[in-house]
């Protein structure tokens, strides 16, 4: 849930796919000629230098895109400024506040949280509550909501919250709670 450019990802994957198909088609056309395309000439020295330079540019752009994935993580949820100075609240603190209330519910296995910068001034908190499959979803959602509203009061501001109720590998291995 980061700020990564998803359309960009799609376009890059599509271009690489098309390039692979085009290369395969070129080779296939040589094995079983369908279209008459001129052969690639033996490269002169300057063409080799151009190829090397192009390769360098491709490498730089590719790695640039790779290393800018998943950006937008932040540790600070809110920064409050008043007469006495600035105070910032760490995402962990906000998460612990909610975790304490929610983890008491039966069938909640774990609570994890991450904060994301969604635009220049907004930070959203993502809460991932892992439950067993038999969990009462309404109970979990309402408990988180109560905790979030309490957090609003404490921080005196509203943080955007994304709640994700999930089951995971851990949840499927955890023994189901049964009342007989």
């Amino acid at each position, binding site marked *: 849930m980061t700020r990564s450019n998803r359309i960009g990802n799609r376009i890059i994957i599509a271009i690489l796919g098309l390039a692979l198909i085009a290369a395969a088609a070129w080779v296939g056309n040589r094995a079983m000629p369908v279209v008459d395309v001129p052969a690639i000439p033996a490269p002169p020295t300057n063409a*080799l230098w151009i190829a090397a330079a192009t*390769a360098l540019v*491709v*490498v730089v752009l590719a790695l640039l895109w790779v290393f800018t994935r998943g950006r937008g993580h932040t540790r600070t949820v809110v920064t409050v400024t008043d007469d006495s100075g600035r105070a910032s609240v760490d995402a962990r603190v906000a998460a612990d506040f909610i975790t304490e209330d929610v983890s008491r519910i039966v069938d909640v296995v774990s609570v994890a949280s991450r904060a994301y910068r969604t635009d220049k001034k907004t930070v959203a908190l993502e809460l991932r509550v892992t439950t067993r499959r038999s969990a*009462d979803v309404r109970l979990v959602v309402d408990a988180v909501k109560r905790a979030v509203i309490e957090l609003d009061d404490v921080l005196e501001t509203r943080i955007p919250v994304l709640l*994700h*109720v999930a089951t995971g590998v851990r949840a499927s291995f955890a023994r189901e709670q049964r009342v007989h």
Partner: protein
Amino acid sequence: MTEQQLYRRLVRRSRHRSRSGTVVVALVVLAIVAIYAGIESVLAATGMPALLVSPVDAIDAIENPGTPVLIGAAVAAVLGIVLLVVALSPGTRSRHELLDDRMAVVIDDDVLAGAISHATNREARVPAERISTVVARRRGVVRITPTSGVPLNTASLTTAAEQLVAALDPRPALAVSVSVNERGVVGS
């Protein structure tokens, strides 16, 4: 951006894959290939011996393909089609949105299925392993195997399942149906 707009975006991004994993793998492979091609080009341009294949030999192999090159081309074609499908498919994850006035809420379909099973079983009262629910985007199907000699009322089971879905109100909307296995099993 208002909070509601932000929530709509958060939910949309949570319900779809980002494809960042695919992009990272594809671009790292591309970078490795480009580094190798660049090195061979420089070696050829400066008249030094090739590491593995010189550009001239590589072009020759492509223009007059032997069996290994043809196999490579076939693999490339399949890989290219896979990438195109990944790029063009909607990439929806199995999650539903729940409406809430304070938070954006998404739940995994497994959780939703578990909740439907649980609610239906309050009515059916069979051991938990004999009730299962499968949730797709717009449809949920509950399957129950009854205990022999204890008939189940499909209508009231359906009502129980529908009540839970109505209470949660997942988006996209879900139509539930209950199917009771005709053959029961003995004991509990």
